[in-house]
């Protein structure tokens, strides 16, 4: 019984981090119809920023928000100076479906190369700011530690803030309208180009948080060739697709589902199968319910 509860706790914590990464991917997809593989690189770069600030100030509570700001700036920068001109020039030449995919894949490589050039073999340390030794319940130590509780709290806080921004503010209405119907939004006076950059910025901040939490929950340090970040990117994508790629709620549900299933497989089947299992889940979802958990009945929208 303890074992099952512990597995669920581990799965929910990891899943909540995948949810953040999925949100980062969904936000960019909704605002510009770009599949953003560079999200993994942006999260990595922001985590290095976080590690550098942590080294200088010694405070996780300063490092996390500043890394989020850095992630937002990196992401907005890439949208404004790289993808926007690229998409404007591509037009309707048949390649416009592949163009953003190739472009963001290339960006991922470029970001990693730059980080490699700057950091080389050095790593950025992001140790857990709170004890990660589990609470003791009736004599047994459970998988819920102060650190895990903090991760869940941060993710919950971000999700509540995002929901409030999207549902209750004028900015949120502009973001939703611009993603559903850019032309109508322009005609209603919305500065759609600017709103898209804002969408990328929020995505960058979510990705930065995912990166930092993934590191503190995992090895405690980032390196340019970090395997943890490759997993984060892949699991973020799988979670986004499970959730229906269009929906923020779907991204959260997708992340939690994936986290729990992977934790169960890790505990009861074997660690070497986790990666394969993630893709198996992805394929099953695409076969059985291609629109995702939260998705329009008419199937996936282009």
């Amino acid at each position: 019984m303890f074992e099952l509860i512990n597995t669920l706790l581990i799965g929910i914590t990891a899943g909540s981090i995948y949810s953040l990464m999925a949100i980062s991917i969904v936000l960019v997809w909704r605002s510009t119809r770009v599949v953003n593989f560079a999200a993994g690189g942006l999260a990595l770069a922001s985590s290095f920023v976080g590690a550098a600030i942590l080294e200088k100030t010694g405070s996780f509570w300063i490092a996390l928000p500043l890394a989020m700001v850095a992630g937002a700036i990196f992401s907005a920068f890439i949208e404004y100076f790289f993808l926007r001109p690229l998409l404007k020039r591509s037009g309707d030449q048949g390649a416009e479906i592949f163009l953003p995919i190739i472009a963001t894949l290339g960006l991922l490589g470029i970001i990693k190369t730059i980080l490699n050039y700057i950091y080389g073999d050095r790593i950025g340390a992001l140790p857990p700011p709170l004890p990660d030794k589990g609470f003791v319940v009736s004599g047994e130590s459970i998988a819920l530690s102060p650190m895990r509780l903090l991760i869940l709290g941060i993710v919950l806080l971000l999700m509540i803030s995002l929901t409030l921004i999207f549902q209750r503010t004028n900015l949120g209405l502009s973001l939703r309208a611009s993603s559903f119907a850019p032309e109508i939004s322009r005609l209603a006076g919305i500065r759609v180009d600017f709103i898209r950059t804002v969408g990328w910025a929020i995505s960058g901040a979510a990705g930065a948080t995912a990166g930092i939490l993934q590191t503190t929950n995992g090895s405690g340090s980032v390196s340019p060739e970090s395997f943890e970040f490759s997993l984060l990117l892949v699991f973020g994508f799988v979670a986004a697709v499970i959730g229906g790629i269009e929906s923020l709620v779907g991204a959260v549900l997708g992340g939690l589902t994936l986290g729990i299933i992977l934790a169960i497989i890790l505990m009861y089947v074997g660690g070497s199968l986790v990666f394969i299992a993630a893709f198996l889940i992805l394929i099953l979802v695409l076969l059985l319910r291609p629109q995702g958990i939260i998705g329009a009945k008419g199937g996936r929208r282009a």
Partner: protein
Amino acid sequence: MLRIDNLTVDHGAIRALHGVSFNVEKGQLAAVIGANGAGKTTLLRTLSGLNKASEGQAHWNDHNILHSKPEKLVRHGITHVCEGKSVIPELTVSENLELGSLWRRNRSESAQSKREVLELFPRLGERLSQRADSLSGGERQMLALGRSIMSKPELLLLDEPSLGLAPLVIEQIFQAIRDLTTAKGLTVILVEQNAMGALKIADVGIVLNLGSIAASGSAAALKDDPAVRAAYLGF
């Protein structure tokens, strides 16, 4: 006043508008009629900044309006309602309306505009929190018109508001357009396939044929012109 001189628009190799010139006085409702492919929609899309003009000029209140983005032209009083009940189905009725007034950044004025819209179309008021895709075709057209009013337009560009609506609903929509024009002193360009209905409520009419102006004049005169009737009104 809207002044259009020698407006020419190309879609790739195809010339959609060819040297079109006409004026519309402030407060007038101008009906633009003509067959499919005559360039009516292109005309509106060029005036609202969605399409690029190849040649010519267009001035609204002495501002050159070509080569500006739609979101900027809205701020100069030009609002365009696209063909086919242009609402955002995923948003609620209320959100669709509010969208039109976000750029004004003035809550009290926006609320005032919303009250006016709901007075004009009380049916929208009963459905404020419903998603726009739950509305009927006529209600969606009302919503699209309502959103344009929320943008506080001076020049309203309407593309086929009657498209796909029942005759009785068309009559209501046309009447609403006429009332709005008079009550708010709007200048309106109404593009329509339903030529007879449009000319009935319009002050002036412009007949487009294959990208050029084939006839123009007062709406009443056009309606009774035997040549126009035979060629474009179908009787």
